């Protein structure tokens, strides 16, 4: 008895939600906002929860049976002549099950939260139908059994992201246009990644003859074992040389979706969407699909790593190395930018980019379990932080409304001294500089936010500590992997410092000190729909580290390394303890095929970096010290922010050299490079040029002037010179001749019936005579 057959229901439930809310919910809300919101909200939450239940059932079934299960539905493509066949099929294994649990679990909580957050919005039902649609596509993404099905979800979540970022497209004063521009930017940036995905899939097909995961991986392994070469229409290549391009293209695709350098610029703008969206799509689920993609394709990446020279893209950097480097650089860069942001959500957005960099770096180093582990914990605490920030924004808006309602009673002059604040339209409920001291106003939000921040900073024993530690330990545990690992290790360590620092800055600015705006005085705690998910997630964050506790061996460093050699760690050695260690690893390793190709295989096919299995005390202590140092520093820096001067220079900006660096990062150099460098200087002139070239030149000039005018001038010559005497003479002469002849003929037509009858009669007679004498 297993639940795999229920897989289609995973999609059916969210789709029902989409249809219900798209068709009925809209009318319900319009008819009666209060009751309608209940219906719309609870219905789609219910659908998300039902999907979660199915996901749990599938998980339970997989506990008994670790193998991957393919549930085919029906053919999508089938071009028999080209042997190209793609089915709609689910692949249920431990990896997709893990993703499913995160998506539907966190997704359900965010649905509940959104009921509270979106309360009062006229487009309440539309919002929930988008959320359900997003779940639908996200589930396709993680359960598809082929790259092409993954791509369906991949584009589908991009679409939902577009719709949800642009959700408030009708706000006045240009805000609506800005929102929809942000949505478009996200869509197009994602499309750049999709460009690479399409090429990667095409290449995969022509190399392996299929796009289904399992056959692709199996034949890749077979070809690698046999040292076969790949025959493509344009030549013959070694497997590594081809796979390095496929994996490179996957990296570009992942960079688009998971907001890595150079395509991350859309994610901070995506904060224009409602906060539950930021929590669900732009923190917990969609943006992690790049990590999922690389983890899913681990065999291909590991073969490239093991291919030596032929797998090198440039110098001696192979694709997995490049993945790690891109991840690490993104982690650092986004961490630095997060320092400079004053918008409460933008800080979290850059933080997300940075943490995604950590995960990408982890999978790039072959530490797929660490990447997935961080993905899960990050989903918990970043969703928590985003929802917390939503709660704060909500509170600030309420406070401001409250203030504004009493505006007539109090005289507004007393806060007119703050420029940019004297008019209520200029009030930005997301600006951290106007906050402060919210911990008393919003206790639940505060405490849960603290848990999330500390987890993100990597403080023991919260979830972030364990997962981030495992990533850093990967570097430490693989001292033989060369310069790339060392570089990535140091970069990530600095990024970890940044993480702790900017989170401290944020927490200090938002919750501590004195309120720097009157609105703070009137901020209420958010309602139960919003705080309940916060509490649930906070508890999850506290305990989530348990899903992959490392083994703890007190044998000192040397022995720790020895333990690592066991690394690759036979599952049978599992120790019975109070808390099971390495649960996630034992669970996921069934889906990471390359794991079975190392020393588990006989003979070993691949060599891959070791996965950290025991707690590396050096790394743990080092990173804890860094985190605590950053927190202390941040605390000192940002204490005593004056109530009177909320918009004074930032503390870091005030320091001579650091200040200019700070300003450099605040000006978002990368975004400018991408937007100005690309769109402005390349695309717009091209469009203008094409307008000139196509319309003015090709259409108007060539056709109207060259072709038409030359035709007309030739016609002119003909009609004025040649025609009158030559052609015309002949034509007119003929005409006159006919005219004269017809004048004579005309006389015969008397109009008298008798005459006509006579001619008929004569004709008949002649014929009769002819017939008689002819015979």
């Amino acid at each position, binding site marked *: 008895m297993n639940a795999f057959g229920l897989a289609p229901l995973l999609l059916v439930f969210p789709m029902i939600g989409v249809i219900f809310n*798209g068709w009925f919910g*809209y009318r319900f809300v319009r008819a009666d906002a209060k009751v309608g919101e209940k219906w719309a909200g609870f219905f789609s939450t219910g659908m998300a929860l039902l999907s979660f239940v199915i996901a749990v059932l599938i998980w339970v079934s997989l506990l008994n049976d670790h193998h991957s299960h393919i549930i085919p539905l*029906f*053919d*999508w*493509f*089938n*071009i*028999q*002549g*080209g042997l*190209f066949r793609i089915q*709609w099929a689910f692949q249920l294994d431990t990896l997709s099950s893990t993703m499913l649990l995160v998506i539907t679990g966190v997704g359900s909580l965010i649905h509940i939260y959104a009921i509270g957050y979106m309360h009062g919005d006229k487009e309440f039902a539309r919002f929930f139908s988008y959320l359900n649609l997003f779940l639908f596509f996200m589930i396709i993404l993680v359960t598809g059994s082929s790259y*092409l099905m993954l*791509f*369906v979800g*991949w*584009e*589908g979540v991009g*679409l939902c992201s*577009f719709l949800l970022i*642009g959700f408030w*497209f*009708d*706000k*006045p004063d240009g805000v*609506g*246009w800005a929102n*929809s*521009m942000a*949505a*478009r930017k996200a*869509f*197009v940036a994602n*499309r*750049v990644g*999709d*460009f690479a995905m*399409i*090429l990667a*899939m*095409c*290449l995969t*097909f*022509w190399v392996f003859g299929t796009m289904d995961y399992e056959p692709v991986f199996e034949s890749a392994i077979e070809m690698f074992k046999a040292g076969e070469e790949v025959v*493509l*229409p*344009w030549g013959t290549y070694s497997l590594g040389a081809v796979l390095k391009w496929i994996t490179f293209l996957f990296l570009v695709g992942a960079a688009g979706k998971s907001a890595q350098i150079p395509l991350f610029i859309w994610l901070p703008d995506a904060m224009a969407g409602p906060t539950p969206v930021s929590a669900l799509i732009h923190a917990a689920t969609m943006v992690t699909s790049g990590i999922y993609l690389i983890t899913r394709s681990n065999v291909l990446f590991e073969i490239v790593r093991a291919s030596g020279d032929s797998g090198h893209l440039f110098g001696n950097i192979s694709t997995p190395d490049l993945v790690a480097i891109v991840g690490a650089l993104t982690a650092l860069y986004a961490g630095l930018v997060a320092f400079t942001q004053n918008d409460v959500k933008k800080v979290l957005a850059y933080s997300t980019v940075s943490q995604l960099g950590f995960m990408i770096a982890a999978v790039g180093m072959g530490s797929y379990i660490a990447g997935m582990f961080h993905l899960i914990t990050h989903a918990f605490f970043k969703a928590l932080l985003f929802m917390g920030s939503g709660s704060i924004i909500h509170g600030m808006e309420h406070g401001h409304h409250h203030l504004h309602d009493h505006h007539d009673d109090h005289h507004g002059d007393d806060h007119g001294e703050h420029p940019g604040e004297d008019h209520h339209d200029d009030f930005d409920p997301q600006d951290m500089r106007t906050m402060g001291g919210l911990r008393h106003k919003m206790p639940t939000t505060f405490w849960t936010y603290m848990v999330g921040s500390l987890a993100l900073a990597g403080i023991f024993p919260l979830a972030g500590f364990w997962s981030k530690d495992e990533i850093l330990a990967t570097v430490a545990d693989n001292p033989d992997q060369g310069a790339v690992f060392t570089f990535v290790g140091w970069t990530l360590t600095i990024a970890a410092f940044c993480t702790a620092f900017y989170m401290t800055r944020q927490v200090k600015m938002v919750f501590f000190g004195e309120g720097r705006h009157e609105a703070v005085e009137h901020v209420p705690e958010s309602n139960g729909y919003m705080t309940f998910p916060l509490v649930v997630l906070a508890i999850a964050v506290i305990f989530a580290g348990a899903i992959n506790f490392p083994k703890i061996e007190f044998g000192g460093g040397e022995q720790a390394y020895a333990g690592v050699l066991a690394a690759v760690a036979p599952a049978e050695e599992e120790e019975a303890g109070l808390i099971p260690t390495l649960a996630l690893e034992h669970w996921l390793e069934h889906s990471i095929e390359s794991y079975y190709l190392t020393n588990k295989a006989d003979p070993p096919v691949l060599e891959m970096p070791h996965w950290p299995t025991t707690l590396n005390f050096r790394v743990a202590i080092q990173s804890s010290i860094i985190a605590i140092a950053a927190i202390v520093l941040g605390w000192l820096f940002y204490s005593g922010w004056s109530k009177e001067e909320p918009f004074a220079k930032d503390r870091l900006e005030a320091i001579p050299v650091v200040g200019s660096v700070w300003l450099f990062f605040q000006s978002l150099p990368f975004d400018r490079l991408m937007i100005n460098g690309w769109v402005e200087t390349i*695309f717009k002139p*091209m*469009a*203008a040029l*094409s*307008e000139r070239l*196509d*319309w003015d030149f*090709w*259409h108007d000039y*060539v*056709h109207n002037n060259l072709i038409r005018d030359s035709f007309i001038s030739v016609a002119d010559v003909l009609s004025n010179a040649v025609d009158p005497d030559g052609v015309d003479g002949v034509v007119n002469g003929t005409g006159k001749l006919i005219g004269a002849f017809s004048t004579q003929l005309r006389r015969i037509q008397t109009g008298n019936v008798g005459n006509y009858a006579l001619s008929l009669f004569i004709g008949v007679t002649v014929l009769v005579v002819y017939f008689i004498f002819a015979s």
Partner: protein
Amino acid sequence: MESSFSALLTILMAIPLVGVLILLFMSDETEEGAQGIKIAANLVAAVALVFSIIIMISFDGTDPGLQFEDKFSWIPALGITYHMGIDGLSILFLGLTTFIMSLAIGASWNMITEQIKKYYIFLLLLETGMLGVFFAQDLFLFYIFWEFTLVPMYFLIGIWGGKDRVYASLKFFLYTMAGSLLMLLAILYMGIQAETFNLPELIAQNDLWVGNNWLFWGFAIAFAIKVPVFPFHSWLPDAHTQAPTAGSIILAGVLLKMGTYGFTRFNLPLFPEASVEAAPIIAVLAIIGIIYGAIVSFAQTDIKKLVAYSSISHLGFVMLGIFSLNEIGIQGAILQGVNHGLSTGALFFIVGFIYEQRHTRELSAFGGLWKSIPVFAVLSLVVSLSSMGLPGLNGFVGEFSILLGSMGSDALAVGGSRPWIYTAFATTGVILAAVYLMKMYQGVFMGPLDKEENANLREMNGGEMAIMLSFLIFIVWIGVNSQPWFAAMDATVADLVNTQIAPAIESITAIAGN
């Protein structure tokens, strides 16, 4: 020659003509008369549609040859035959034609108010002509139908078009006509040399023209103008923007496909070697068209012109697929032809629907229409997404097959060139499609609703809803389950590739190898 007569195709072609006869006896002078004409025209189109569905259902996809043949000698002295038949190359276009025609005739209900009788007569004549183009299996017959379609379209643009309609219709007519002349020369040459105009017989002796590349180009230029392939595209924006909505739908939906169909039906089997030799050239033109069309489309502020230019981009994909010269590419291209007909047809309907109420097509005049006409906005979103190739909708199925086919193309790899470069450039069209379509969609439907005229728009009525939903059903169906659509042409295309193109590639590779 052996004659056979299953009559189905001839009857299908006669249905619109019967409709024309009926309409001739009706009067559009009174309100009721005009109503009657509309109903009659819609009924005739519906009958043709039902009839074509019956033919499609009874079509056998596993048979590579012609089916439902009507074949007898017509002018024996010249070797001209009356030969109609369909196979995998044309079966989808048969359905597309009758389907698009029904919708175009339906879409004209409110949009055309003058000279109704003539208008519907021209539409029905056009339907017969287009069906004839797709059925004809004799070069002479084909040429007659090919030219015949020009006439009704010329009048449709010239009488019911926008303000520059005379210019546009003349340009359309002359452009296409000029291209056809070369084809006529080629047809006459071939017919006289082979002493027959019957297509299957000509294909059987296509060795006669090996090395005679001007014949290939004679056909290719005529078709390229119709498609239109860059740089022959400049009639298209004029014709599209000036044509009435139904005209644009038909133009995009079916007439342009006559060009791509011509390539598959005539160029590939008649001149396989010339096709292989020309593949890189045409593929490059196709890719220029993809990128160029997309960029120019982005620069437009008139939404109808934007959609018109997007056709150039989309048909670039189709051309690339055909000249990949393998099963995946060709089948993808044929299906993409159908897809383009559906999604661009629907886009023109959307533009027409908005234009009818606002009398402007300037992007800046719109904004926030989602708020005033939400149902229409949602359906338009799906159509736009289909046009930009979102997986799960029809556009992706065609585009992806084409890209896949082009990367594995042996023809494009002849002489050591790298097909993946073609694929990579063509794929940028996918990004650009998102850029220009999103620009249009966002500009029209999103943003604040700050103009009063936009706030008072009416939502679709029942008939318009039915038209949109008919488009959408196929957009989703093909997108989710393309297998039956591919199955219809599997056998024919495989036969074409195996018997004609593969040997040609082999011989040319052998020459290039030496």
